[in-house]
């Protein structure tokens, strides 16, 4: 059963400053007939360069931005035009984690208030009280629950991103949209957050829409990949199919451009460390 299905998504924006008194503004097509399917327990990565439309696509699918045309189905229900209470229900099912953990957390709110905010907005009963829920959310993302009365500035970037993930998990979403969620993090912290997301997904079975420009990260976390450029999906498929035998010219160029640690050095290092990685 498809969890999230996008069909022919199109998003046009007015180009600023091109509208005259009677002349309509020039239109820019950011997303151009994009379709995809996301299943429960899967991670679909949308990859591409800047301006490829990957973030806008994710925002359309999460109903943060309204489509120009096309449809979004969640569990078979058309959510493309829902409003009010019905849209609130969609918000319960679809949550987001953003790139910059600090600018997406209110600096004046305690962690407890931040991670339980979605429950408050949803006007949902909080079993056992806010404190208990906040503590259990913090434990799930491996933060010290005793720090629930601290403010975002008292945490490191990686910890702040864990808070953002805890907040997204508060309402038990079935779809998690991660927009460059690990891009701003140091490599050592990035590894922890990738492992955390993988672990949580294995436990909770949510589907994940993962937007990233870093293909090496995508290789570690995605089950499926859609490659975007110029607002269109030029190639999609299972992760290993796309990475190991890319069909589209753009995908090949993208993969070839990724800097790599020289394979001979890499092999020597694993030999020297007494660890030999099995060939794929």
């Amino acid at each position, binding site marked *: 059963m498809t969890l999230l299905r996008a069909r022919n998504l199109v998003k046009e924006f007015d180009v600023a400053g091109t509208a005259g008194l009677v002349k309509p503004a020039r239109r820019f097509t950011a997303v151009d007939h994009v379709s995809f399917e996301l299943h429960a327990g899967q991670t679909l990565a949308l990859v591409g360069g800047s301006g490829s439309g990957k973030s806008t696509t994710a925002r359309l699918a999460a109903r943060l931005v309204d489509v120009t045309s096309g449809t979004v189905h969640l569990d078979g229900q058309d959510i493309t035009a829902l409003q009010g209470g019905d849209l609130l229900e969609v918000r319960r099912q679809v949550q987001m984690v953003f790139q910059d953990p600090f600018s997406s957390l209110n600096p004046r709110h305690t962690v407890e208030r931040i991670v339980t905010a979605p429950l408050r907005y949803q006007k949902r009963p909080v079993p056992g009280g806010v404190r208990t829920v906040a503590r259990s959310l913090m434990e799930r993302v491996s933060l010290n629950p005793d720090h629930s009365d601290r403010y975002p500035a008292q945490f490191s970037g990686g910890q702040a991103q864990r808070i953002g993930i805890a907040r997204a998990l508060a309402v038990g979403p079935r779809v998690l949209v991660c927009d460059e969620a690990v891009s701003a993090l140091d490599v*050592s*912290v990035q590894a922890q957050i990738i492992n955390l997301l993988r672990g949580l997904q294995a436990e909770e079975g949510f589907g994940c829409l993962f937007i990233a*420009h870093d293909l090496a990260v995508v290789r*570690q976390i995605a089950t499926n990949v859609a490659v975007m450029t110029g607002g269109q999906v030029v190639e999609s498929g299972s992760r290993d199919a796309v990475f190991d035998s890319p069909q589209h010219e753009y995908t090949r160029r993208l993969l070839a451009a990724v800097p790599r640690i020289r394979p001979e050095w890499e092999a020597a*290092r694993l030999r020297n460390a007494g660890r030999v990685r099995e060939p794929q």
Partner: protein
Amino acid sequence: MTLLQAKGLTVTFGATNVVDGIDFEVRPGGTLGIVGESGSGKSMTSLAIMGLLPSSATRAGSIDFAGTELTKVTERQMRAIRGDRIAMVFQDPLSSLNPYYTVGTQIAEAYRSHRSGVSRKAARAAAIEAMDRVHIKDAGKRVDDYPHQFSGGMRQRVMIAMALSTEPELIIADEPTTALDVTVQAQILDLLAEVRRDTGAALILITHDLAVVSEVADDLIVMRHGRVVETGTAEQIFSDPQAPYTQALLDAVPRIDDSIGDLRPVPGGPA
């Protein structure tokens, strides 16, 4: 034979040493990679060389650049070196370029400020030549364009053209490709390599990206918390890292050609 040698270089803010007594050297025409995560002190190291530290910072130790002790020179002498014999390329080309002037004006200004008596016309010709050298097509026309008329990658080419215009002996590039798309990043890295080959300039490449540094650097220092945890040739460090931190860092890097089980996070850092 060294072009630049730092000994016991220390940068202090208040009571904190953000760079804590580090040693390194750059060979003429060589490439030194300085790698580290945020807060490792790698950018402060480059600002210390350039004499561009914020006024709240103090610098100690020695930096010998081709026989000149940079910690002892006057600001006036430093201005003659900075931008001329040592040039710098920053991460974000948009914020390093003045939006009100054409790129040609800015390259020419940088050039003329170090070449007294050069006419505007000659400086403009030098700017066009520098833009040509970094493969900006139609340099003769684009010299009159403003920064916003260039893409991110093209702006970084402009910055490199500006750095090159005075034929520096050393170029310091601080995260020069971090803000760029991966295909553009590859082009800029190729360009930097080509520039080094053609002009014989040495390069200090500061980056958090181990894969980038492995493609570019001859020598490497790995920094953490203001200290050098490991130093050696790139080949030594990548194929046989000695410091536990370097080993952990290399384990934590996601690999594009390989999907492994859990990545191994670096122990001891912030979570």
